[in-house]
């Protein structure tokens, strides 16, 4: 392990995050519209009211002043306050983590396990009927709009058959709550989300395996008489996993970022909906904070993947 390298990579995060914040802040300021538009639709709010509301939130000041104020507060650990009610932005984000990780974690776990099995079998028996079915299935799963699919699942399994609840993360009625109830609510959104993710992961695994099993050292291993199960486990699998570790690192922001569409359809109170609402209402403090958290996770995920790779793959050397 080369600690110098790790420290250098961590230090490199700083300019990247500053760059992202400036870019994000400017884009939001330059985009037309603003959170006061919501007040316009309120019939007893007049133009003076809107000017006063802007002033109260400091939105009448020049852009660079607003940015520096925001950045200074961010550095001291104050993530600012939502324009809608003034709640602390960090609290708003932290509140959504459990539900988000629950949904995304379940869906990702299903997707990675199923994707691995489907991808490995497909590669091992390339151009078999199973491989064709898996490929076609993945294509269909990736093409179905999640919004429509989610609504159909609710219509059939919740409204017609009554097997599952039609949304939310728990039954709110007294006496009906508990672990099993939460699990019952999780099934449909997790499976809907897992469908698309499984399709993606099965393709990743398939191509990673294919690349490896045509390598010379696999042929050598077969040639020296090793049983093919052992060749697969010891030689093919380990090497096929390498590119997937890099991919797994990039799942970190996905895990915390939530799923916009699935969360909306199933009324799941995750990060995706928080982001969507904040963007719809132009609640910039929330949008900025989520942008920063996501950027941080992207960089962190990549860093962890790089370090993990360097440990597993002796060919990788730091420079």
């Amino acid at each position, binding site marked *: 392990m080369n600690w110098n390298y790790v420290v250098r990579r961590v230090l490199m995060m700083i300019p990247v995050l500053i760059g992202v914040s400036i870019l994000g802040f400017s884009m939001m300021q330059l985009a037309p519209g603003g959170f006061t538009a919501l007040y316009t639709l*309120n019939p007893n709010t007049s133009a003076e*009211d809107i*000017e006063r*509301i802007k002033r109260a939130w400091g939105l009448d000041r020049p852009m660079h002043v607003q940015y520096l104020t925001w950045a200074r507060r961010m550095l001291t650990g104050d993530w600012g306050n939502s324009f809608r009610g003034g709640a602390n932005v960090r609290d708003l984000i932290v509140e959504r983590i459990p539900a988000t990780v629950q949904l995304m974690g379940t869906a990702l776990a299903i997707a990675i396990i199923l994707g691995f099995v489907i991808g490995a079998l497909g590669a091992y028996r390339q151009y078999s009927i199973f491989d064709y079915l898996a490929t076609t299935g993945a294509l269909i799963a990736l093409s179905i709009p999640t919004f429509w699919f989610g609504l159909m699942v609710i219509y059939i399994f*919740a409204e017609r058959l009554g097997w599952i609840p039609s949304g939310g993360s728990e039954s709110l009625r007294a006496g009906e709550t508990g672990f099993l109830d939460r699990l019952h609510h999780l099934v449909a959104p997790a499976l809907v989300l897992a469908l698309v993710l499984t399709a993606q992961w099965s393709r990743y695994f398939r191509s990673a395996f294919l690349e490896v099993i045509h390598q010379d050292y696999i042929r050598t291993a077969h040639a020296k008489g090793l049983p093919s199960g052992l060749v697969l486990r010891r030689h093919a699998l380990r090497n096929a996993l390498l590119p997937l570790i890099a991919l797994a690192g990039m799942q970190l922001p996905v895990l915390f970022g939530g799923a916009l569409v699935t969360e909306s359809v*199933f009324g799941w109170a995750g990060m995706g909906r928080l982001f969507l609402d904040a963007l719809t209402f132009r609640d910039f403090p929330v949008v900025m904070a989520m942008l920063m958290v996501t950027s941080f996770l992207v960089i962190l995920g990549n860093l962890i993947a790089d370090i993990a790779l360097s440990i597993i793959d002796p060919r990788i050397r730091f420079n």
Partner: protein
Amino acid sequence: MSDYKRMLERVGQKELNRRRLLKGAGGIGLGAAAGAFPRGLRLRGARAQEGGEVIVGMSQETINYNPLLYANTGIDTVPEVLMFDSLLKILPDGTFAPNLAAEVPTVENGGISPDGLTWTFKLRQGVTWHDGEPFTSRDVRFTWETVMNPDVAVRSRAGHDKIESLDTPDDHTVIIKLKEPFAPFIHVWTSGVTGVIPHHILSKEADINIAPFNTQSPIGTGPFKFVEHVGGDHLTVERNPNYHLGPAKLDRVIVKVVPELPVLYTQFKTGEIDVIDYQGIVPDRWEEAQTLPDRVVVGSPSNFVEFIYFNNARPFFQDKRVKQALYHAIDVDTIIDVIYYGVPRRTNSYLSPDHWAYNPDLPTYPFDLDRANALLDEAGWVRGDDGIRVKDGVRLSFTNSTTAGATNREATQQYIQQTWKEIGVEMTINNMPAAVVWGEYTIQSQFDTLLVAWDNPIPSDPDPTSRLHSTLIPAESGAGANYVQFKNAEADALMEQGVTETDQEKRKEIYYKLQEILADELPWLPIFNWTDPFGYKSNLVGYQVNPYSATNLGNVYEWYWQE
């Protein structure tokens, strides 16, 4: 076959739709009747049940519990009426009842001085905040001071800016002096306009805009106390045993967010929610909803009117005949029946047809393309080579904007676009996200026309001054909400007279006259009065449609379950 002709063919469905509408009206009757039963009355031998909970489903999240600060009327009005009170409440018949005030001030009882300038509110004794502190006139004074505080992002000062001084001679008296007589002033003190906030908590906050009170720890005087808010999921409130109008029968009320409308309906059908509130039953399932067992659906009249808003400063809208022609070329009945499944009702004014000041004798503009063409010919607009009319080198071509993605609005626009094209008018659809179209674009009157729903500045009062007075055009003066840039001296005079006149019958005459002018000049085209397609479980007693309030949940403390 053009979409337009296909739509005309569907007009054949109208009869069916009317029948459906009548059925819907039956629902209204039923809802009102249920609400009219005195508390504790046993229906059909069923016993009233103490306790229990009600889950109310809504498509948007309640977010700001400070009654003065929230922006999302209709959504955040719900927690306001659950947890907070105003001095007065407005009843479904448009009359007032005392709430935190001990009586409704009138000239007869000495509450209003004969010149209309001094208002005296006697406050109810023995009212406490949820934390046990007594409610006094100091809280009312603090509420007004907060509204007028320049550093607080209060949603509106409408009415409060007419106050010259507010005095509190003792703990239970508030004396308000107005700068000038202002007839709608009584509405200022109702729920949804001015909820009273606690002095003993909020006066200690350095910045009320970000006070934890707004989102995590609201303290009111209302029938329910705050329990929890789970972001993106639900709000829970529990019974306030000391409520001054009698404690609620229900133990808890949960307001649940169901963001997608089709799913909101599913939850109503499966019983996961007990009451379906804003935005209600999705129109294409309205007919099915009426056949659901153990459910009552109500077409709840709202104050919101759907308009075509004109930017009257544009050259082609200077001549009222052009706007009259455009009105004749909108097939309102088909829009209501086909796009909105017969749920909303037609209105010829900016008021709902139920409003006490609605003028029933206004001229109407039936769908008549020949009449529309004749009006445009008369106004000197001649068809050019491309079929679009031209006058003095100006083509009769303009944009119409609304929130992008609002499906029914977009269908309405497309249909209007077709019928207007028939009379040689080119309308281009230019939709934008809500945060854009309702921002500067609206306020600075940068639009040609908008498709938009608004209710009146003070919903239960007919005064439209801020939206129509010539001195209140934000693009010119930075003040008001006259985004249509309407300028009419006679209308100005009537509106000035209307707010100073205190006699209701005389006010009616004034607003009748004003509506006549508007129906002739057409600064906007009223299309229909929104009817909210709501519903509740039939063993829930007490649900009451209140057309003068932004929510029907104003009397939840009277609701109970029948066994």
